[in-house]
């Protein structure tokens, strides 16, 4: 396995709304159309809340979605 792709917040310093503690970069499995991959995203170490930055949603994630839709 190579290094997992990692995405950080577009800007700022982030707190979980529920747990009031800072988000940390952590591994999360993501799913689409019978495929799954691991990525590193900002998430709350306590409740698991995970942030998908806008740049990721409109960039790499959209690209991968389209690719999987052609499979």
């Amino acid at each position, binding site marked *: 396995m190579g290094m997992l792709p990692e995405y950080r*917040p577009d*800007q*700022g*310093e*982030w*707190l*979980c*709304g*529920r747990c009031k503690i800072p*988000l940390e970069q952590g591994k*999360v*499995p*993501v*799913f*689409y*159309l*019978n495929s*799954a991959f691991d990525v590193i*995203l900002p*998430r*709350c170490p306590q*409740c*698991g*809340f*995970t*942030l*998908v930055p*806008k740049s990721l*949603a*409109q960039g790499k*994630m*959209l690209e*991968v*979605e*389209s*690719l999987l*839709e*052609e*499979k």
Partner: protein
Amino acid sequence: MLDQDSLRRYEAQCTQDSPPQCRINCPFSLDCRAFLTNMACGKLAAARAILERHLPLPHIMALICDHPCEQACLRRDFGGAIALHHLEFSCLAQTTSAERLLPIPPKRHKMAVVGAGLAALTAAWDLSRKSYPVTLFVDGEISELLLCQFPNLEEARAWLEEDLKVLLRKVCVEQKTVTREALVTLAQDFAGVFLDASTHPALAPAEAAVDASTWHWQDGICVAGWRSLSPTGHTYSLPSRQAGQGREAALTMERVAGKLSLTAERKKRYGNLHTDCTQVERVQRLEPQTTQWGCALYSQEEARQEASRCLQCQCLICVENCPYLQKYKGYPKVYARQIHNNATIVKGLHTANALINGCALCDQCSRLCPEHFSMAELCLAAREEMVARGQMPPSAHEFALEDMEQAQSPGAFLTWPKPKPGASPPHWLFFPGCQLSASRGEQVLALFAWLEQKLSGSDQAGLALCLACCGQPAHWAGQRKLFEEQLARLRDVWQEYGKPTILTACASCLAALREGLPDLPVRSVWELVDSLELSDLPKEARFPLPKTFSVHDPCAARDDKGWQKAIRSLAQKLGYTLIEPKCTAETTSCCGYGGLVWCAQPETANSLVADRIAQLPGDVLASCVMCRDRFVAQDKACWHILDLLLPHLAVAGTQRGPGLAQRRYQRSQLKARILGQTIRPEGEEVALASDLAETLEEQHILLSDIITALEQIEAKTLWCLNKTNNHRVGAWRPRKVTFWVEYSKTEHGFLVHDAWCHRMLVPGAGGEDAETVIAREQSSSS
């Protein structure tokens, strides 16, 4: 579905691959188009290579061929046929051969060729090039024998000798007077025998006694090359005919030797290549300044000029008129193959998905195509197949289908007035369609009221209203079952009202109802209005309307003569002048709304609308509100026929139509208004940062999505906080899309700074507990 047979049928319909007339009429199938392309740009060596690849004895043929290609040239009526013959001669005269024949091991079957006419020499040429050992039996000098028939070769002896030198490198010559008995012996000793009728008329049978598709006479002996007879009884040698027969006979000899069928799959069959010559301008054939050996010799510049007169015959009539067909750089025949392959892929990428979902299903191509090739039919079938196999990308049409669902939801669906048991049933059921109701509610109501009053007391009295969707989006998305469900619901409504005639104001609804419910009486509301007396329509306009319009027919009404006629008649009666664009009525172009391209491929839809706008001078008159709104969105002034009928309620031709979210709201608004209810405008407590509305529209994020998301995000604390600017960012996943909203709380509610969405499922984003999502997804995928 698209099996091998139907693929072949589709492929055969598109004639773009068929050879042009010049090539069909050349017995050697010379690729004249490619030859002329090279000549036109001065690539003489490449042009020569084409001649050498196709022509037997190229120098001789270039000198004496009677060029049937020129008789068939479509340029003939526009300044004279391309001077192919002179150009071939000039090409050879100005180049030297660079031909390198690959050494092929000799074949086992020995061939005998008797005679030295053009047919015999062609047969020997062709067979020896395919590495058959050929023996040429002649009774004298070859060049002298040939000169007897073609005395004008005398001047050009150098060329004659050059071809013979090449021929004799590979062919053995034996001096022999061949008799009937000798011919029988040859047939025993050789795998194939050819007899030239022009040099051995006494041995050869009459031409009529030999099968003209093979030139096989008997016992492995082929005969061809007869001299022709003029109407005055004069015999002469026609080079293209004799050499052409020699080539066909050589093919037969190979088949005889290989014990193959002499006739099976001998000639590839082609449809006739259609070429539109209506725009061709006359350019006179160029007469060269010099001649050589009685042949015209073009200078390189002259050759370039003459060759560039070639029309480069091709069809592409559908492609030239459709930006979608241009986008993938091919033509329907190629696309049919790609779509077929897409369906048969098990592993690997379905790269034709975009091709399939990019078609507006408008069917202009089939009306322009002389063979009626329909990309719409092909793409719709492919979509239905993708849906059936579960291979339709969710992102393609889901959003449009949600819009349809909203139009059918209790909030927007309406039948009014409710059918009363016992009362006499209405004569008409007005079905304005979900898009017109969403953007022109006021006009819909005014037209309804005018019609109701106009019809009252007549034998056609009684008008009811149905606000609903016809199901066309489901049809276009390939969701056949869903389409049928929508239609079934409409049939129920129709029956409840006692089977009135349905009046539609949307061409797509009309098309959907006619296709899906063919037994129901349906017509356009415009035809009814046109049949009524119009003098009591309001005259006062809200603002001045133009007097002249370019008329744009909706693509869904391309076959609907009644619709087209009514629009023109109404505009004329109301005092307006209409201009017909090039593609109009049956061949009208799509605005990009058709086939859900606006949803699946907005950029393709935009190129369609831009292309159509360029064809329409001045202000446009549309009779479909989606065409109207799409034109105006591209800054093209456009009016709807309702603006002409009801000028006091006109919407300015430059005013943009409502956005996606607003349409949904206005549908519900119209229903509420009819029922005398009021509905609160949605999202009063939600403010959008400036310029955000348009970005959201492009991403297919509706205000209602944001409102619901905000409610859930706040209620369930599904947000995180950016300490640097105090913005909250939260996610809600109501269906297979996760919506993210970046906002701050204000005194009255929320200020939304940004929003984005994705389809991918990210645990911990969207409401559900992260661990629960991970556990469920991992167990379902393993």
